[in-house]
């Protein structure tokens, strides 16, 4: 895979969401609630919003 804009953008968003998922699991165990699962879900919503703003 070439180190293109598409690759860098895809990696950046996926890594952020993966890290947030790890944080969410930790917070779920510590806080005894599933609410932190919303963290990566909200970040994914931001990704969707961002990808549709690309115009060129």
């Amino acid at each position, binding site marked *: *895979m*070439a180190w293109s804009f598409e690759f860098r953008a*895809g990696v950046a968003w*996926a890594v952020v969401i993966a890290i947030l998922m790890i944080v969410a*699991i930790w917070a779920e165990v510590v806080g*005894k*609630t599933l609410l932190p*699962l919303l963290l990566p879900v909200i970040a994914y919503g931001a990704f*969707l919003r961002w990808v549709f703003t690309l115009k060129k």
Partner: protein
Amino acid sequence: MAAAPVDYYLIVLRWTHFVAGITWIGLLYYFNFVQVPSFKELDASVRNQLVPKLVKRALLWFRGSATLTVLVGWLYFFSFWAINSFRSLTDWSWGLSILAGGTLGTMMLFNVWGVIWRHQKKVIAATEDVLQGKPAPAEMAIWGKRALIASRFNTILSFPMLFFMAAASHLALV
């Protein structure tokens, strides 16, 4: 101890989830590691021939297997959770891990339908028009770009997704 009917139900769901998942992620890796770099080396005329034939067919299997994987996966999750009396997920390593992997997998499914297929079907239609002598639309480049970003995103996210799926049975998180 003989297997109960519910065990057969669960193993059929699990096997279906595996087969569909291997098909989905296999095609995802094919697109990202094989097709995209190969297409860059091909002449536009050859590429235009392959898009309505090879890519269209591969994408049909891709989105079909993605949908089956996620739907059967969630059915398995809720079935197994119900069998375990809906125990607290925050105290249950299996539940936490599958929930994490399943959430990532569901994001990937949304990308398949909401970004990749949404744009690729326009690219395929436009390519078919080009083959019939019509001009390519100006938006074609951005359709391909958005689909490619979502595809790259899914490829990278598949690694933690598969980690959490495997960790459910092989790593204690709690």
